[in-house]
């Protein structure tokens, strides 16, 4: 980057060059266009992983199918977190489920977006005094859009989706970067709920390095705790035993 700047300054210093170049500005006029184009394309093809934890999932079939037809916005369901852009959490998240939601979220490739549907993800909703459900989803995951309601109608779901599309198009939907930049904060909240030995298979700090999102709050007391308790992952022992086949073989 600096090399190119120097070159352009040298070029502009050349006599006879009429093109005025301000120092510090990108000279390639197409570079920004491509960014905008990518953002636009990204906002128009979203694969959605719907983690249907609670009753809010009932509103998704009409939102996805022919009545409201989410696919005309370019949003369609995806079966695996590895290929999904949006994680849709619909309804209350019990402490047990929250672990799975975090595992799912960390498996998604960046850029990734989280939508919390229903009042339960905002503040516990009607389960606010339940010992079993987590209250604020954005304590544990960075949430891009909350769609409040008990339950929100498909119109509201689509309005929320459109809002997310708009923010992606404008390059403002950067909550996923927050997870890397303030990983210590999120991990601290997770450890408060799950205990100090909590760990996920994903190396979030390495991912943060990969995406260039290491910030001053990426590492801290909680990640130090994680490193203390972290056990190396072992491959699952895959065994297939079909008694009938074994019987036939012998």
């Amino acid at each position, binding site marked *: 980057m600096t090399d190119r700047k120097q070159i352009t300054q040298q070029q502009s210093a050349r006599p006879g060059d009429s093109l005025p170049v301000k120092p510090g500005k990108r000279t390639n006029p197409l570079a920004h266009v491509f960014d905008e184009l990518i953002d636009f394309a990204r906002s128009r093809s979203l694969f959605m992983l719907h983690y249907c934890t609670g009753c809010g999932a009932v509103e998704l079939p009409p939102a996805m199918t022919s009545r409201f037809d989410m696919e005309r916005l370019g949003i369609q369901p995806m079966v695996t977190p590895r290929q999904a852009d949006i994680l849709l959490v619909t309804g209350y998240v019990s402490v047990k489920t929250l672990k799975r939601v975090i595992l799912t979220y960390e498996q998604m490739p960046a850029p990734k977006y989280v939508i919390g549907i229903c009042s339960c993800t905002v*503040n516990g909703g009607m389960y606010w005094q339940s010992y079993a459900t987590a209250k*604020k989803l954005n304590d544990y995951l960075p949430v891009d859009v909350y769609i409040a309601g008990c339950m929100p109608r498909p119109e509201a779901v689509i309005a929320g989706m459109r809002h997310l599309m708009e923010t992606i198009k404008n390059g403002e939907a950067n909550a996923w970067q927050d997870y890397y930049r303030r990983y210590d904060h999120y991990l601290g909240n997770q450890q408060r709920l799950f205990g100090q030995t909590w760990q996920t298979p994903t190396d979030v700090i390495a991912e943060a390095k990969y995406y260039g999102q290491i910030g001053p709050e990426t590492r801290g007391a909680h990640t130090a705790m994680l490193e203390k308790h972290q056990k190396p992952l072992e491959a699952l022992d895959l065994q297939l035993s079909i008694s009938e086949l074994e019987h036939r073989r012998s």
Partner: protein
Amino acid sequence: MTEGKELTTWLDKVLTEIEGIEIRRKSSRRLRVDVAADALPALLELLRGRASYVHLSAISCVDWLDDGEFELVYHVWSYEMQSLVSAHTRIPREPGIYISVYDIYTPAAFFERDIHEMYGVFFEGSPDMSKFILTEWDGPPPMRKDFDSEAWVNDHFDWQNYNPEWLQEIIAQGGGIAVRPDEQRFSRKQ
């Protein structure tokens, strides 16, 4: 069904012969039996072996905090008589140990494990008393009446800010939250 009716009157008579149990017939197909804790397995043995009540629908537990007792209710169903018998028994809250009826009804293992998890009642002789649904739980049994769920929640979770800055603008325009959550929550009403 007439046959079933005769059988139920027969059952009533048989049960009234036994000392120390109190029977209350709720309807032709529902019978409540109150029995002492040490006689309950014998009663269930009788109901299952002789009176065709082969199906244990559920074991429910009630925490009577003021009496210092747990009430255990065994719901047994007979397919032949088409009727339900609820056998109620009370055990002291402390130490909260009772005997399993796993040897009489096999599905009892499932219900007893659940009650052990939710109320802390230990069933001696039950095959598995390990954690069941609340595998992540390390607090006191949450269905006990003396467990303060609200205090636990306030201890473990943070709340969303109900006065964010963007709301002030809406309030200035005459909008805002009609009933604040603090006013709406029954437990906080004085």
